[in-house]
């Protein structure tokens, strides 16, 4: 992988560092992403025991990009990122099916609630 990739065509690039050969420490620049993906991805990557450090930053609030830093205990940082992304996708899959099942169950239990125009305010 080259140190810099054209940001016009690529959504992901690797920030240039002094030690480009070190596969275990990398800073990825994710264009058009923010805290939404950054924080969720950081959590998934931190859950990987191979990871020494994972953090992200938004360098400037009006630039739509985040820097995601990964340092590992030996495995390739790119592989760790890929694993994190695919794990997050699997998590979303499970959440989606669980949510849909719960909604179907709720609608079965409460057949009339769907069409209620003005629900009674809940007692809080």
């Amino acid at each position, binding site marked *: 992988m080259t140190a810099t990739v054209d940001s016009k065509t690529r959504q992901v690039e690797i920030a240039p560092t002094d030690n480009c050969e070190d596969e275990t420490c990398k800073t990825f620049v994710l264009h058009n992403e923010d805290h939404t993906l950054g924080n969720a991805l950081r959590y998934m990557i931190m859950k990987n025991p191979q990871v020494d450090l994972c953090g992200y930053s938004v360098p400037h609030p009006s630039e739509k990009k985040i820097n995601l830093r990964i340092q590992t205990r030996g495995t390739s940082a790119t592989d760790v990122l890929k694993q994190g992304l695919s794990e997050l996708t699997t998590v979303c899959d499970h959440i989606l099916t669980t949510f849909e099942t719960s*909604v179907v169950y709720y609608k079965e239990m409460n057949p009339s609630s769907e069409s209620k125009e003005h629900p009674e305010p809940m007692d809080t």
Partner: protein
Amino acid sequence: MANIEEIRTRVRLGEFEVTNGHTTDFPGSYSGYDDAWNQVKFEKKFHIDVIRLTDRDLEFDMVGIDCAIANAFRRILLSEVPTMAVDKVFIYNNTSIIQDEVLAHRLGLIPIKVDPRLFEYRTADDTEGTPEDTVVLELKVRCKKNPNATKDTTDPDVLYVNHKVTTNNIKWLSQGNQAALFKDGIHPADEDVLIAKLRPGQEIDIKMHCVKGIGKDHAKFSPVATASYRLLPEITLTQPVEGALAEQLKQCFAPGVIEIDNIDGVLCVVSVDSAVCCRCAVGCVCVLRARVAAARKDTCSREVLRHDTIKDCVKLTRVRDHFIFSVESTGALPPDVLVTEAIKVLQAKCRRVLQELEDVDSDDQ
């Protein structure tokens, strides 16, 4: 060990501070815990319970997930689930006192009840629009004097015809094969939203183009009025709270959070009931004890910690992985559909970056 479990799973509300606010269950943080990601373990623990679902409101509990991911859904609901909104306003005539640009802004903020999944995004250089990416609406109202109005009336509703311009006046102009696709027509989500007021002789004649967009670009595209979550509150009484203190404790929380039981089960001599007590100090020997009845209703005000007499009797915490989501739709899509769309958006983000990384790999080879 019990303390470690609490640090891992609870957020503690202190009198002046919140402790254990951060997620710490990462591999290597605690000896004796396997904190590596495990999909099977996650699926075992994770569950969702829908509490309330109407055509506009949704409340559900999402249990067994980290706030990083729950927050991603909240953020996506606010700013990345697409809807259709008025984006181009063609003003043929506007003699009302509302300026063109203010009127255009007001029209933009009106929620339109149409499924955005059936449309494409309109390209930036496209000014005409196609039936696949644009919904055309028309607003054509002219105010007149009511000839039948009685002479002495001052009520504008009687004096004038069409003096209130509302969302009811917005008509859909079907483009291409849209009429076949949208059998029920396309309307604003709410009736009777006041857009402008007119006086006789004034006229509004407008055509609007609704396009698909996301809340990130403009708040008018946001599909939710609010989307928020709170952590499940938990109140633990560390010692029995009885008598006057029990009453004081009850007053510190929202109604229904703390209930008071007459624990000795003996009839209260004054109120003649074993469940309730007269609570008069004179002639009553009942033992009243506070009980946490519904911690969920707690507002987490921490009022109780201001009272020195009872603050050591309670421990206020919140369950770190129990999210009570509340989603209020603006009306374009039902709230449950919005949540499924939000989950799909996060998935799409992951796939996009993953695809990119794999493309780079294959380019290098």
